[in-house]
């Protein structure tokens, strides 16, 4: 399941919705990305732009790819858009599987893939000036890893 929303998310509630009444899940991993107040300067505001329509399609594609690679029983991707403050949640990924390795790897894969493929762009007010966040080379490297292994 994927969602793009301006509102915050409640991690506990999302976990409960995914696991409620189920007794086949052995391992559940969540990743939450948050706005940091320091990123090569003091950050006071983050604004997240996205490509409506394509974003949702990309997230669904990414999620399907994870389900093809690992035996997942459930998964969830939520990405926020709009104005965010330091300490605010940006993104939530949840993966559930019978065993922990699949849940860990799939969550890590989803984040690496999302970072390099889903059409979101971050602008920060950093040291008082608006700046587009630059791509980190390590994010590209993290993504390539998944394709050289297989």
């Amino acid at each position, binding site marked *: 399941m994927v969602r793009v929303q301006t509102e915050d998310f409640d991690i506990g509630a999302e976990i409960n919705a995914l696991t409620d009444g189920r007794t086949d899940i052995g391992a559940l991993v969540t990743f939450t*990305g948050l706005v940091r107040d320091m990123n090569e300067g003091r950050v006071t505001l983050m604004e*997240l*732009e*996205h*490509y409506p*329509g*394509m974003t949702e*399609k990309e997230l669904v594609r990414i999620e399907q790819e994870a389900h093809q690679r690992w035996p997942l029983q459930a998964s969830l991707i939520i*990405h926020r858009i709009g104005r965010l403050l330091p300490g605010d949640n*940006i*993104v939530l990924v949840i993966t559930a599987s019978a065993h922990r390795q699949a849940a860990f790897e799939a969550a890590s894969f989803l*984040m690496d893939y*999302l*970072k*390099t*493929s*889903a*059409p*979101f*762009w*971050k*602008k920060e007010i950093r040291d008082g000036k608006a700046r*587009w*966040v*630059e*791509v980190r080379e390590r*994010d590209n490297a993290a993504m390539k890893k998944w394709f050289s292994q297989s």
Partner: protein
Amino acid sequence: MKLLYFARVKESTGVAEEEVMLPRNVTTVAGVVEWLKTRGEGYTHAFADLAIIRCAVDQQHGDLDTPIAGASEIAFFPPVTGG
């Protein structure tokens, strides 16, 4: 053809989206870019460094060689930075 621009590219072109009539000899994304660069300073600036331009044809990632025949929507944007 509907063209969309996001983030830094949008700031350079000055528009978020526009309907355009592309010349018939434009058949790939590269052709669209070349044509756009003739449309004024904002576009020239937006597409000055193609190393930091990404594109999507009908909401699927493409590149300069992607054919545009039959497409209804082309988007240009910087490398993505979500997550």
